[in-house]
């Protein structure tokens, strides 16, 4: 089956982001497809490249990136949510005259149209928040 997973919660502030990661891995392990990951609202912090966790803890952001890269997933961060929360790629940083990139390369910034496209192309949409 084709799944899309929508993540509404920031890492660490809530467990939901971790549940979403664990669920996504299991979806793929069972041979299903993930059509898209969509990070919305506070969920955009999962794509941060600046977050630092203590050495004895796993980085949820790094774990997402590993999954996305290894499995060649399509991972989209909602542009409206991202800008408000300081999650910027090079294009957005330049446009707003800021000198820092805060998003990981593994996710792209796009509009809510990508969520609706995911809903129309997926057999199941599962939200975590």
């Amino acid at each position: 089956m084709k799944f899309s997973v929508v993540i509404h919660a920031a890492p660490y502030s809530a467990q939901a982001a971790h549940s979403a990661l664990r669920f996504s891995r299991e979806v793929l392990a069972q041979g299903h497809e993930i059509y898209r990951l969509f990070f919305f609202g506070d969920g955009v912090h999962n794509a941060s490249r600046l977050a630092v966790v203590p050495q004895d803890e796993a980085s949820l952001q790094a774990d997402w990136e590993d999954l996305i890269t290894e499995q060649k997933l399509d991972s989209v961060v909602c542009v409206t949510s991202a800008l408000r929360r300081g999650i910027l790629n090079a294009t957005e940083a330049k446009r707003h005259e800021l000198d820092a990139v805060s998003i990981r390369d593994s996710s792209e910034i796009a509009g809510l149209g990508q969520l609706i496209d995911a809903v129309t192309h997926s057999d199941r949409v599962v939200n975590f928040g």
Partner: protein
Amino acid sequence: MSCLHLINRSPVQGALPVCSTLVRGGDGVLFIEDGIYHCLQAELISNLPPDVELYCLREDLLARGVGSRVTETVESINYSRFVELCCEFDKVVSWF
């Protein structure tokens, strides 16, 4: 079309009072994260119709030290079964 309802907040914060008035026979309810605390007290889930399947996520029970306290009407499952349930029901509704 049948529906798997996900409940992830504790009973005092949770949406179960509303959710339980909207579930239908043949639906399922899966308790995850802080939602699993619903499954420790039978009276918290007694408003759900009898023909609704009840599940809770074992990883979340074990983390919270309550693996042995789940009320008998609720089936404890792992992530693998969680994904299977998402396929068996026609859609998934998350109540957060």
